């Protein structure tokens, strides 16, 4: 005999109400310490107009939503297998087609062409700069973090540190920091690219060699601390990084120069205009995508997979886990370093406030939501999430503040992990691992096994 509140349908109803109430809180007006009620009560009682059809209180709308949610959930439980089969039948064929090689390559070419014309399709200056600063750069960051989290299975929460190092290196070698550039030679940002990439890779090796011996969750917290420390140093070393005033420092106004080419007959200077930067970044995005996909299926990539799936087994067949993990760290850092160069050069000045832990989490959610280990997934995740967040910031709906974004990002992380752990476009290998682990076949990564680990 089950007590009444343990009845499945009561639980379902309660959960529906709770979920919808949380959503209502999230989308409601903001409150303050002085009047927390504006947030808590306001989000229920505020008057809303539903497309002009009727004007009511928010709680009515959300009550209807909760009941609808409950209905769909119950229907799904009752007819779930049938509905799932129908859904699969309607979506299966395109997926089969998509997995054929020529089709897939054709699709990629179309995507590339669209990406090439994108700045001409969106004429709005806001969206053009978003394309570079918020989408292209974040695609680069996500590609890099994907190598670490997706390929090697290492949770890095301080990825922003590499981005910061890339940006600050650029500022340094172009002579824009309070500390003089090496040999007082002010380089073109093009030359900063290799320097920055080498710097971040070295930083990756230096950080990785001691810390990558640690288990996964320790690594996460150490990298998190590393990211914080880089920010603390950037914020406080006034003589070197300009401190909280950024690359200009307290006195300087010397900006980080834009890219420029002077190769024989070709003379071109990038300016503040975002579109040329977009093309430059696009070229590098494509290069990094090609490089990382080749890497994924190379000897190194297979070693990463082996370590991720079962470190002990990998070690027993002669793979040195530490070596390959450090490699993942350094290689993943490279694209973040390049992203740093672009950001520094495009915005002329850099500030430590850009390189926060929030940014690391933001990049992490792109990778997780897109699909760990899946390059198309990560790119799609970055484009989708960044576009949506920038849209929300640009045209905020009622009750939305820019700082609420991370609330949604946090929620998205949980929801992805619960409902679609392999992400939007899963990597086949990753999905298989999750399925195996859930079936209890894989023991390498299991929780609750007592003393294993």
């Amino acid at each position, binding site marked *: 005999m089950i007590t009444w509140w343990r009845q499945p349908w009561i639980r379902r109803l309660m959960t529906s109400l709770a979920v919808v109430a949380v959503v209502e809180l999230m989308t409601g007006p903001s409150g303050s310490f002085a009047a*927390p009620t504006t947030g808590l009560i306001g989000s229920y009682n505020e008057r809303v107009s539903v497309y002009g059809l009727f004007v009511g209180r928010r709680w009515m709308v959300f009550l209807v939503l909760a009941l609808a949610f409950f209905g769909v959930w119950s229907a799904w439980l009752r007819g779930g297998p049938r509905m799932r089969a129908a859904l699969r039948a309607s979506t299966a064929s395109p997926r089969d087609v998509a997995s054929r090689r020529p089709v897939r390559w054709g699709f990629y070419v179309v995507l590339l062409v669209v990406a090439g014309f994108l700045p001409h399709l969106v004429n709005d200056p806001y969206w053009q700069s978003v394309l570079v600063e918020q989408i292209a750069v974040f695609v680069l960051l996500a590609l890099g973090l994907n190598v670490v989290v997706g390929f090697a299975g290492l949770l890095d929460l301080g990825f922003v540190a590499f981005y910061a190092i890339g940006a600050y290196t650029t500022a340094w070698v172009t002579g824009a920091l309070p500390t003089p550039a090496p040999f007082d030679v002010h380089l073109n940002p093009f030359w900063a690219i290799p320097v920055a990439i080498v710097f971040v890779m070295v930083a990756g090796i230096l950080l990785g060699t001691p810390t990558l011996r640690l288990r996964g969750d320790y690594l996460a917290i150490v990298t998190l601390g590393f990211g914080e420390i880089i920010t603390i140093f950037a914020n406080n070393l006034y003589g070197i990084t300009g401190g909280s005033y950024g690359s200009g420092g307290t006195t300087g106004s010397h900006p980080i120069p834009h890219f420029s080419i002077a190769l024989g007959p070709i003379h071109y200077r990038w300016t503040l205009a975002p579109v040329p930067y977009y093309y430059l970044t696009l070229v590098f995005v494509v290069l990094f995508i090609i490089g990382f996909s080749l890497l994924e299926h190379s000897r190194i990539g297979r070693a990463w997979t082996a370590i991720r799936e079962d470190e002990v087994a990998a070690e027993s067949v002669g793979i040195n886990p530490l070596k390959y993990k450090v490699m993942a760290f350094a290689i993943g850092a490279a694209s973040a370093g390049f992203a740093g160069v672009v950001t520094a050069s495009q915005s002329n000045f850099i500030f430590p406030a850009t390189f926060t832990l929030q940014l690391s989490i933001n990049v992490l959610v792109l990778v997780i939501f897109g699909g760990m280990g899946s390059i198309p997934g990560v790119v799609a995740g970055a484009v989708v999430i960044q576009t949506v967040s920038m849209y929300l910031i640009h045209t905020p709906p009622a009750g939305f503040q820019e700082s609420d974004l991370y609330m949604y*990002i946090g929620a998205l992380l949980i929801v992805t*992990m619960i409902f679609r752990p392999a992400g939007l476009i899963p990597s086949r290998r990753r999905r298989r691992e999750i399925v195996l682990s859930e*079936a209890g076949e894989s023991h390498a990564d299991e929780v609750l096994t007592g003393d294993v680990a």
Partner: protein
Amino acid sequence: MGAFAHFLAGHFDTLRLEFWSLLVGGVANGFIYGMVAVGYTLVYGVLRLINFAHSEIFMTGGFASYFVLRAVMGTSVPSGWATFGVILVGIIVGGTSGALAATLLERVAYRTLRRRNAPKLAYLISAIGASYFLFNLAGKEFGRYNESMPQPYINHPVFTIFGAPVQLYYLVIVAAGAIMWLILDRFVAATKLGRGIRAVAQDAETASLMGVNIDRTIAITFALGGALGGVGGFLFGLGSGVVYTMGFVPALKAFTAAVLGGIGNLRGAMIGGLILGVVESLSIAFVQAAYFDVVAFGILVLVLLVRPTGILGERLGRSA
């Protein structure tokens, strides 16, 4: 070389002059770290996972006690016995809300994954998501600024140690920390539920064969750690005010304390917290204020590299 010696001598002078007051502050901080560290250690003991959202349980404790204290105290500044009453209310509210938040967190971000037997990375990510979600939600509902806790009269020195005043605030922290830790230690060591926790920590599968309800044990473990974390949040907020991001740095340090003492080890958590608090506090004499938070992190890295099992080693099952 001479200049460097002079530089060091200057710092040691500061240390000599300030030693006792730094020590008192450090011990008090250490007890807060210890209280929070216990939460990490308990969860780690049974799940072998770091609970990344523990910082938000700490914050919940601070926020809940803030609102209740504001309602209880109004504009009055209690003194004498009323002070103790107010503090007791704060501790109870902080502990209860922390325990509730931790149980809820376990329900949403952990149990759903455990049902599916998800890989380890999934738990870490969902906990990080929960942490981000919770503190930003708090920021949205209550504003993104620091608000000082309603103050009972607790800042007056009770006695002095070698000239260093010991405020009532510090005594409250030490007493609360010590009492709660003792109760917890006895609970885990001597009660049936505590035995269940130790059994799950040693071998979950066997424990469940012996009739231990794993889901319930894990929920209780979260609640216990959450209660101490919530009280830590209240006591911390009493001194530093409450703000939606208040959990991040103290929790990172508490984690350091847990690792330092040996994660999975209850006594280790308290010892680690004390050592960390004192060392960090004494380091004020040597590092600039801006780099204060770097010290704890440096200790964390050092411990992980040199002795990852911490001072007492990791065994919730045996030594707790």
